[in-house]
């Protein structure tokens, strides 16, 4: 690809180009793989040539990843003896009901 001189007339205004805005609106669907192949291709063709969009995709993907990796700080209080007893009781009763249902079927 030959180097092109800057085209000020069509320069993106810091991601405020209508096409950029349209892409921003659909980025989650794009990142989640929910768009049709042709829509993806259109977005990728635009992004390839648009630094604000590249930056935005990177940021959005980064924050989604941070959510994926989130882990609650610290552990919940351990299940105490009383609750454990109630859980165990409930579990046995539910098992018994399940068994009964299976026999009636």
């Amino acid at each position: 690809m030959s180097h092109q001189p800057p085209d000020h007339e069509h320069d993106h205004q810091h991601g405020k180009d209508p096409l950029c805005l349209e892409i921003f609106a659909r980025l989650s669907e794009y990142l989640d793989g929910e768009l049709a192949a042709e829509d993806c291709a259109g977005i990728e063709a635009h992004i390839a040539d648009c630094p604000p969009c590249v930056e935005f995709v990177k940021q959005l993907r980064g924050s989604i990843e941070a959510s994926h990796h989130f882990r609650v700080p610290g552990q919940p209080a351990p299940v105490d003896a009383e609750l454990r007893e109630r859980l165990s009781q409930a579990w046995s009763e539910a098992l018994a009901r399940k068994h009964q249902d299976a026999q009636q079927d």
Partner: protein
Amino acid sequence: MAGDASAFEPFVQSFQAKIFQYTWLTCGQREDAEEVAQETLLKVFESFDQLREPEHVRAWVFRIAKNYCLMKRRRSVYAPEREYSLDELLPSFDGERSLQIPDESEVPEDALLRGELNARIETAIRELPEIYRSVVLLRDVEELSTSDTAGILNVSEDVVKQRLHRGRLALRKALASYVEAK
């Protein structure tokens, strides 16, 4: 899952942790989160024979947790109920510095950095209005499907997608301004 008695202990362990993570981000206060997690756990054990689709067990558990969280809701600790417009969430790249959080390939090794990122995302998620937080929590933190999430929240899949996108945009913005403020 609910085959026999030997499943009891592993089931307690794995679901206690999962449920607590959900209630922690939803309830706002630690004691509420603990209490709701225990109520949920008990309800799950009392009614697991009613679970019809074992492959959707997590969705079933989170639906129970959601209902207990709603009962426990203390309005004062919640972010204000409001809806975002797309416009307010779009970037203004002029003044905004780049978001320096790692992408998937470079999750920080350093425990401190990891902890800081975790704390940042936690604050940002907690500050989301509830309608967005619940979707981000189920879709992005718990990584449930759009359809499971729609079922838990009783909304359409399109609503889930729209709220997820706005919630993500708000998180991106919150993380970006955090970096800027530092």
